[in-house]
C-alpha cells in the first residue's frame, strides 16, 4: 500500500473504497480509482499468480474469474469489481486441495513451459468447462475455446490435449468424440 499513501498529491490519485471477495476471502481496501485490477491483485493483495503480459487486453495472461466470468484484469479497474466475487489461480484446486483436473491435465500433457501464460489459460479453460453450455471438444473447437490467450512457448498442442483430458476428468466429454484431430 506504500504507493497508494505516498502519491496522494498526484491529481489522478482520487481514491475509492472497495469490498471484494477473492478466493473466498473478503477484503476491504481503499484504492486509487485508476488502479488496475491486475495491480490490485498482485501488489495490494499479494496474489502474484495473475500475470501481466501486455496490459492491453490481448494476451490473456491476466485473466481472472469475476463472478464466474473470465475477465481481463488489465482492462478492469479495481473499483469496478466492488461487491463482486473473484477467483484467481491461487484459488484453483481440486476438492481435496490438490491440483484441479485442469492443472493436472496441463502437467500431464506438457501444456506449460515457462508457465507465465499458464494461470490465464487455467482460468479461461475453467470458465468454459464449468459453464453449462454444450462443449465442442473437436480439435478446432478446443483451439477456438483457448484462442483468447497467447502462449509463446508451447505451440498450444499440449494445452489442447489438456483441455480434452480435463473435460473427461470433469465428466464434460459428452462431445469428445466429435471431430477427430485434423
Amino acid at each position, binding site marked *: 500500500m506504500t*504507493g497508494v499513501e505516498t502519491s*496522494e498529491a498526484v491529481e489522478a490519485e482520487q481514491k475509492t473504497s472497495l469490498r471484494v471477495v477473492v478466493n473466498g476471502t473478503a477484503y476491504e481496501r481503499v484504492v486509487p480509482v485508476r488502479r488496475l485490477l491486475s495491480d490490485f491483485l498482485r501488489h495490494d493483495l499479494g496474489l502474484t499468480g495473475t*500475470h501481466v503480459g501486455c496490459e492491453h487486453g490481448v494476451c490473456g495472461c491476466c485473466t481472472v474469474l469475476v463472478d464466474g466470468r473470465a475477465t481481463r484484469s488489465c482492462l478492469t479497474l479495481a473499483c469496478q469489481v466492488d461487491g463482486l466475487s473473484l477467483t484467481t489461480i491461487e484459488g484453483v484446486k481440486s476438492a481435496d486441495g490438490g*491440483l484441479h483436473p485442469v492443472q493436472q491435465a496441463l502437467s500431464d500433457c506438457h501444456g506449460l513451459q515457462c508457465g*507465465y501464460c499458464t494461470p490465464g489459460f487455467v482460468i479461461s479453460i475453467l470458465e468454459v468447462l464449468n459453464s453449462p453450455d454444450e462443449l465442442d471438444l473437436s480439435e478446432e473447437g478446443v483451439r477456438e475455446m483457448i484462442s483468447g490467450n497467447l502462449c509463446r512457448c508451447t505451440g*498450444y498442442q499440449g494445452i*489442447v490435449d489438456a483441455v480434452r483430458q480435463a473435460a473427461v476428468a470433469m465428466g464434460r466429454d459428452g462431445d469428445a468424440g466429435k471431430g477427430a484431430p*485434423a
Partner: protein
Amino acid sequence: MTSAPSFGTRVRRNEDERLLTGRGRYIDDITLEGALAVAFVRSPMASARIISVDTSQAMALEGVHLVVTCDDIEHLDTEMPLLIPDPSLTSPRTQRPLARGEVFYVGQTVAMVVADDRYVAEDAADLVEVVYEPLEAVVGVDRAVASGARSVHEGVAGNVAAHSRQRSGEPDAAFASAEHVTSVTVRVERSSAAPMEPRAVAARWDSVLGELTVWDGTQAPISVRGGLASLFGLDEHRVRVVAPDVGGGFGQKVLLFYPDEVLVPWAAVKLNRPVKYIEDRQENFLGSTHERLQVHHIELAATRDGLVTGLRDSFLHDTGAFIPYGLAVAQVAAGQIAGSYRIPNISVDFKAVYTNTVPVTPYRGCGRPHACFAIERAMDVLADDLGIDRFEIRRRNFIGTEEFPYDRPGLIFADGQPVSYDGGDYARALSLLEEALDPPAFRAEQEAARSEGRYLGLGLACYVEGTGLGPYEGGHVKVHPITGKVYVNTGLSSQGQGHATSFAQIAADEVGVSPSDVVVVEGDTGEFDWGVATFASRAAVVSGNAIRKAALIVREQIVHQASQMFEAAPEDIVIEEGKVFVQGVESRALTLAEVATMSNPLRYAFNKAAQSATQFTPAARRDGAALAEGAHPGLEATDYFSPASTTWAYGVHGAIVEVDPATFEVKVKRYVCVHDCGRMINPMIVEGQVIGGVAQGMGGAFYELLDYDAEGNLRNASLMEFLMPYATEVPRVEISHLETPSPRNPLGVKGVGEAGTIPVAAAFASAVEDALAPLLHGHLLDVPLSPTSLHAATRAG
C-alpha cells in the same frame, strides 16, 4: 546397479506444480520492502540531436525520487561492452545507458525516473521535456547501403559495421565449370522474440555488507554478475545475480547490458532502496532487441543432374542502431548456409549494416532460419529449373552417413571453431517424411482439388542446427544429509525449457534416486557461479554432461562410504530409489541421508543418523585423522564439461496446405516434423521444444513483421498489431524422432531448443508456392507470406 533409468522417458516436470498453482516467482512477484519503480523517457525519434533535456518538472512531482540523464550517472555514462569482438567487425558501435547528445532509434533511453510506483514514474516521465533536432532516419538495409545514404554513426561510411568473407573449397572454379546456375534473392523480415513475460530487473543494495543483489530475467546471470562487478568496481562475490522464474527468453534475454540492467542497480545503490524496473509490452518492442532481417543473394552451381557443386551467398544483415552482440547472428547464418548438403565449394560474404532501428541480437534460431530459408528456397528453385523432384534433388545432395564427421574447411562457426558436422542419417529423415506425407497420393489429391478450383500444396525444408556450443558449463551435485535430496546446480538458467526435470533425470540415474528427489537450482550466482549462459541450444549438451560427470563422482563417493559402513566390497553396493544396501540384503538398507550424514565426521549428535556419525562411535574409531588427506566431508562434487566441437542436430519438416485463391488464407492440413537431436533425455520435453518452435516459426512464416515506416517509427509495437499466432493459427504437429547419438559428448545428446523454428518459413513457402503454382509469377522468396504479398505474387505482370 541402479533403478530403471529415467533418461529417455517422459518424466513429468518437477517445475509444473509450482507454476500451475500461482506459486511461480517471476521478478515482479518478488516483494522487496519499500521498492521504488522505474520508468524511462524514450526517444520518439529514430535519429536526432538532443538539444536539451529539462527534468525539473518531473523532479518536482510528489513521489519522485530521482530523474537522471547521461550527465548524472557517473561511471555508467559510457559505451556498453562489445560482447563478441571479431576482426571483421571494423566499426563496432554500442549504446550508452542513457543517450548522450544524439539518439539512434525510436525507443532509445534518454532519461530514467525512479518513483514510488510505476504510475507516478510514468507521470513523471511524461513531464521530462526533451528538445530534439531531427536528422534523416536510415531505415531498411537496402537503403542503408545504397550510395549516398546518410551514416547512422558518424565515421561509419556506407553504414557497414562489418564485412566478412569466407571460402571453403574452390567456389570460383565450381561456378566457372557449372552446367547450370540458379540464383535467387530471398528476404526474411524483422521480428521479435516477444516472450510473454517482458524483461525485468530488480536490485537491492545492502550497505552494511556492501553487497549488491540483482534479480534479472536474464539467460546469462553469471555473465551479468561479472559485468556488473566490473562496472561497479566490486569483487564478484559481492554481487549476486539471480534469474528466478523467467517467462520465456528465446535469445532476447541474453544481452549485457540493456540500459536497465545497469541503471536499476545503480539507482538502488544511489538511493539505498530496492528498485524495480518491469518492462511493459510496448517497451519490449521498442527497447528490447529484435532479429531476423536479412537479405540473401544466393547462387547454386550444379550439374544437369542436380548435383550442387558450388554455393555463393552474399547477404546483408540488419543489425539495427548498434551491434553489442557482435556478429553472432550473421556468423551462424554464414556457417550453416550449405545446410544438409555436401556442396564442397562455398563462398559466403556478408555485411552487417547499421540502420536507425532497435538493435539486433540473437532470437531463437540465431541466423539459422535465415540461412535455411536461403538454401532451401534455392534448392526448390534449382529443382524446378532442372525439372527434378524437390525430394529427389535433396536426396542427391545429402551428406551420406559414411561421410561424417563432415568438415567444411575454411568456414568458422559462431563458437570460433571450424564447421564440422558430427553425424546423422539425413536421407533416412527424408524417407520418413515421404512415408508420412505420401507425395504420390498427394499429387493425385492435388490434381483432383485443382479441377474443383481448390489449391493444395506440399512443401518441405531440411535443416541442420549447430548446437551445444562451448566454451563450458559446470555441474555441482550434493546429497543433503537431512533430507537425502540430491541438489544439482549449474550456472545457466531456464526460461521454460524444463531444466529442473531434464537435469534431474541425468543426476537421478547416475546417483540412483528418482528424478522427483533431485532439486535443481540454477540461475543464481549465490549457488553456483562458474559458467556462461543459456543460448544456442546448449544447456542439455554442455550443462547436462557436466552434471553427469559430477553425479558419477558422487555415486563413487556413496559406494565408497557405504562399502566401509557395510564392510562390503564396493561392487556389491546397490543404490536404488534413494536406498543404499549390499546386494541381497535390502532389509538392512540405509537411506541416502544416512550415508550423507556418515560421510561427514561429526562431533555433535543432532539427530539419529548423526549419532552414528560422531567421532565417539566405535565405527568411527580409526587410525589418524577423521578425514584422510585429500578427502572432503559429505557427498558432493563439482565437474565441468567443455565441448571440443559443436554437435549438429538436423531434420526435415513438411507441410500440406490449402490456399484460398480469393482471400489467400492458408489452411495447414498437415505438418510433419522429422528430427534428430541425438539421444533424448525426456521426449515429452523435446516434443514441447519442437512444437513450440514450430509455432514461433509459423509466426515468422505468415504473420510477424516489425513494421517500420520511412521515418523509423515502429508502427506495430503492441500485441494488437504484431500478430503472434494463437492456438487457432497453429496446426497439430506430427513428430518422428530419430536418435543418432552424438559422438561428441558422453550422453550422446544434441541441442533441440531452436530446431523447431529453423525450417518452418522455408517449408511453408515451399508448400504455398506448390499450391499456387498455376497462379504464381515466379517463386515465393520473402517471408512473412501475408495475404497481401501472396495476392501481389499472383497478379499478372
